[in-house]
């Protein structure tokens, strides 16, 4: 679709795996911050004729 691969993550974390949760969230946050704000598929206003 043209969404940057690092913007979307999937992970499977059990409710018992708090350390993994922190690790994954930190990693994702860093990667998405590096990409900057998303400019695609963000509808600020319906574009109409």
């Amino acid at each position, binding site marked *: 679709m043209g969404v940057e691969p690092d913007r979307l993550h999937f992970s*499977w974390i059990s409710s018992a795996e708090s350390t993994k949760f922190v690790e994954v969230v930190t990693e994702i946050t860093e990667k998405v911050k590096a990409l900057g704000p998303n400019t695609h598929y963000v509808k600020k206003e319906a574009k109409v004729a």
Partner: protein
Amino acid sequence: MIAYTDKVRQIARRLLEDCSVEMVIGFRKGSQPMMNEPCFIKKAEDADQLVWDGNCGINLANYLTGRKEKIAVFAKGCDSRNIVTHIVENKVQRDRLVIIGVPCTGMIDKRLVASQTEGEIEAVSETGDKVVVKLKDGGSTEFDRRQVLQGNCALCVHRNPVIYDELVADLVEEQTDVDHWADIREIEAMDVEKRRRFFEDLLAPCIRCYACRNACPLCYCPTCFVDESRPQWLGKGQDQIDVHTFHFLRAFHCAGRCTDCGACQRACPVGINMRLLTKKLEKDCFELYQWEAGMALDQRPALDTYKPDDPEGFIK
């Protein structure tokens, strides 16, 4: 395949005469060149309306849901796979169906023929491996049948029905020398920016008539997400984001279910090849799970099962 017509009529007549079924779903001759109209026959004497040729591209599995009658239906390879999908998804019951298998050698792409023909087409006929186009001004052009097949048919590796009660003809030879995913590999190789522009161009002509969705046997939701108003998921205008969201989400809803029957592309009035979206998912399902939709009644769909050896790393 034109030779199937007699057999098609014969079988329909017999099934109605001996009350094996209440209705037969097939095709009758259309009013346009290269078009046939899906129709139903309830009386044996009407069986002669039925025809079969290279213009039966509509997927008849689309006409089976929500009916109470016992039905006989003609099914090409792709139709039969969608019937299997319907049965697996509990949309139709196997014992309410008589499936008449039609070994298929591909359907003619009417837009391709028109684009390769100068002048207005009056009639198109098939003789063996040739497609003969008669022009309004009296001239005629001849095509090799294989050169004017629908994109999906040219790459089809399941031409024979996978499920049937009887056949209209002997099974045909399956194609083995096709590169089914060439177009998808090209898109996969694009960088993010290029791919986004590619999809923008691909979907730009869309008028949101939903012919692709409605021609698809998989799209049987009572209310489609684009029509839902409480909550409303999607804007209804021509905003590009809404148009893209419709197409991408529709494709994802077909993941692991699409048989690449080509109904969506065939139905599109503005010629969008939205099969490129569904085919990518078809390719992923095949490569990750060796899954092809609708091949057997006793297999659960790819997205309906969990296996400990799932190739995706995130789940471990």
